């Protein structure tokens, strides 16, 4: 159970000195990253990880939590003002946010988005605080076969639920697994796939690779689309929503909070999915669904609340089981390991005070972005107009210098650029990048625990199916993979039919 005394101490630590400054700075930077279309929360965290090296581990973590929550919220600002989601997580906010801006109510929409995000984020942070210790306590019973099964579950969900094509997701995930094997064998200690080079003996550096795959690849993407960046012209007034407007959205808040939490806990899907489900459920259960899409505050509150409510859910499996929920939490996990903190149940046993500080940091981060969002809304709106011709080179330089800073080694910079370019090519040709990164974390977990299981059972695979928890997780993995692939095939079929119908209609008009 959560220790309230430690939690209060955690709040005191978060609000003291450098930690408070780091949290506010992280949140501020996160909102800016989120508000600029094309820059994602994952990219923001990846970019800022090197800046946390010189910091005390908790100061660095609290800063990254600020970036994470701030960026997820910030995406809604661009959705409302320029009809382009700042982050993929804010895609559904466009539906009602932009029509509100066209009616001259951009300020009101941003105000509602801010409060809704704050409610969702705080709810999920509280859930994380109360459920994480229970789950971690349960996970202390896990042994190698259970961890192997968990890694298989995480991998199967990741490769089947991300991207358009499951085949490409699997290829990306498998390549990630093979990349994770470069370096010394986890049990035998002999070199694997190093091609005789000393630099590869320790494997590819994880953080430069993350920066490359998530930040630099997006940088290349921005180079491609740089001329299409829209500009903000709306004037923001009446930003703080009225009590009556908030009361009208109470049911939406409750619904979206629960949706966000459930989606967040599910591996491989996060805020991007939560916002759409939150919006469609709000529309489905509304007394006036016909008004959705015409510019109503409920249509802004639902997706924003759901997307931020997924953040705590994403962190839950990462902190308690070492199983990242999505790309952003994978990067956060990388940052924690840099500070010599290994997420998992042992983190709760060995660093109880730090875990409670993280909970306090997460709750505070959600309050901080609400204050910043309401106070500096006009500034964040102007940030969208930033000249990309100067911003993009800055991103590239920050990526490369940040990678170099990890070990003062040019090889890390080369790793970042190499994976950045690979990531860009992958995005261009519909290969999802997240499975590749998640597979590297889960691959290490899967391989070492498989080998341990085999050592425990004297090379008998039966150990994986004779332990009830491991067997349940493996069955769940098979079921999720099967349903995931089936669902994707169905949606692809629907897309193909729609495309064919559109083509037939075009031909008909031309005829």
């Amino acid at each position: 159970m959560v220790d309230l005394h430690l939690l209060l101490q955690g709040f005191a630590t978060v609000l003291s000195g450098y930690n408070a400054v780091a949290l506010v700075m992280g949140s501020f930077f996160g909102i800016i990253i989120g508000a600029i279309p094309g820059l994602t929360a994952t990219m923001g965290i990846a970019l800022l990880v090197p800046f946390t090296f010189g910091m005390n581990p908790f100061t660095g973590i609290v800063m990254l939590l600020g970036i994470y929550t701030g960026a997820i919220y910030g995406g809604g600002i661009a959705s409302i003002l320029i009809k382009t989601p700042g982050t993929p997580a804010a895609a559904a906010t466009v539906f009602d946010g932009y029509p509100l801006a066209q009616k001259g109510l951009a300020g009101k929409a941003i105000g509602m988005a801010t409060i809704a995000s704050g409610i969702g984020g705080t709810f999920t942070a509280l859930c994380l605080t109360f459920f994480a210790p229970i789950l971690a306590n349960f996970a202390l019973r896990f042994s190698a076969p259970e961890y192997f099964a968990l890694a298989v579950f995480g991998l199967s969900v990741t490769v089947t639920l991300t991207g358009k094509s499951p085949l490409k997701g699997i290829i990306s995930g498998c390549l990630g697994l093979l990349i994770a094997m470069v370096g010394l064998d986890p049990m035998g200690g002999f070199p694997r796939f190093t091609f005789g080079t000393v630099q590869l003996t320790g494997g590819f550096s994880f953080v430069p690779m993350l920066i490359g795959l998530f930040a630099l690849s997006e940088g290349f993407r921005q180079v491609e689309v740089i001329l299409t960046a829209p500009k903000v012209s709306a004037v923001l007034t009446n930003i703080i929503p009225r009590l009556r407007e908030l009361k009208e959205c109470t049911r939406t808040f409750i619904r979206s909070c629960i949706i966000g939490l459930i989606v967040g806990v599910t591996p491989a899907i996060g805020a991007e999915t939560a916002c759409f489900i939150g919006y469609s459920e709000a529309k489905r259960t509304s007394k006036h669904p016909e008004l959705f899409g015409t510019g109503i505050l409920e249509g802004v509150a639902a997706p924003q609340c759901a997307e931020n409510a997924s953040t705590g859910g994403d962190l839950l499996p990462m902190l308690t089981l070492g199983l990242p929920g999505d790309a952003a939490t994978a990067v956060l996990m990388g940052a924690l390991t840099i500070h010599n903190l290994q997420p998992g149940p042992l983190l709760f046993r060995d660093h109880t005070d730090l875990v409670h500080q993280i909970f306090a940091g997460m709750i505070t981060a959600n309050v901080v972005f609400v204050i910043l969002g309401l106070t500096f809304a006009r500034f964040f709106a102007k940030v969208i107009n930033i000249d990309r011709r100067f911003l993009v080179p800055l991103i590239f330089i920050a990526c490369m210098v940040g990678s170099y800073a990890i070990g003062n080694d040019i090889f890390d910079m080369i790793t970042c650029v190499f994976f950045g370019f690979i990531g860009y090519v992958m995005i261009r040709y519909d290969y999802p990048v997240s499975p590749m990164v998640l597979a590297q974390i889960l691959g290490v977990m899967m391989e070492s625990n498989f080998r341990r299981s085999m050592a425990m059972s004297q090379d008998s695979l039966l150990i994986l199916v004779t332990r009830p928890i491991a067997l349940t997780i493996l069955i769940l993995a098979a079921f999720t993979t099967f349903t995931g692939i089936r669902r994707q095939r169905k949606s692809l079929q629907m897309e193909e039919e729609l495309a064919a119908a559109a083509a037939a209609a075009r031909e008909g008009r031309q005829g």
Partner: protein
Amino acid sequence: MANLTMKKADVIAVVIVIPICLYVFYESGKWPVPALLGRPFVIPRGVAAFLLATALMLLYRALTGRAFPLEKRLEGADLRRVTGAAVLTFGYLFVVERIGFLGTTFLYALLFAWVLGERRWLRLILFGILVPFVVFAIFSTALHVPLPRGWIEGTLRDHGFALLLR
């Protein structure tokens, strides 16, 4: 990458993936098998076999005309910008240790902004000067991370600018 259709891209991906899988099988055959530590080749070979099967399925889909349509082709000015950015970035890697962070980043920032379409020289030069010095100040001074010096910074230090660069 220019004018590449999704079908061609899928075929190229498979052509890259197949030798990787074969190499995994080849190299894992040479590994020692430590006693009581599980067989080290099981997972790598399993992953390679699964990857190979998936790649062949992708190839089948591509050759039977079931590849997904490409969102947008990379051509014209877009292609020139991406190529310029890639050339500058890979070039940066080769010279940053020799010339040093300050000089290389000045040129990189200036040329990159120019490649992206900025043509006002005063802005370009100001940007080129400001970026390396600000990044240098953050990393070298605030975070105590030494950045590549190269001959430009070495020369500046030799001529009495050490205090400025500290």
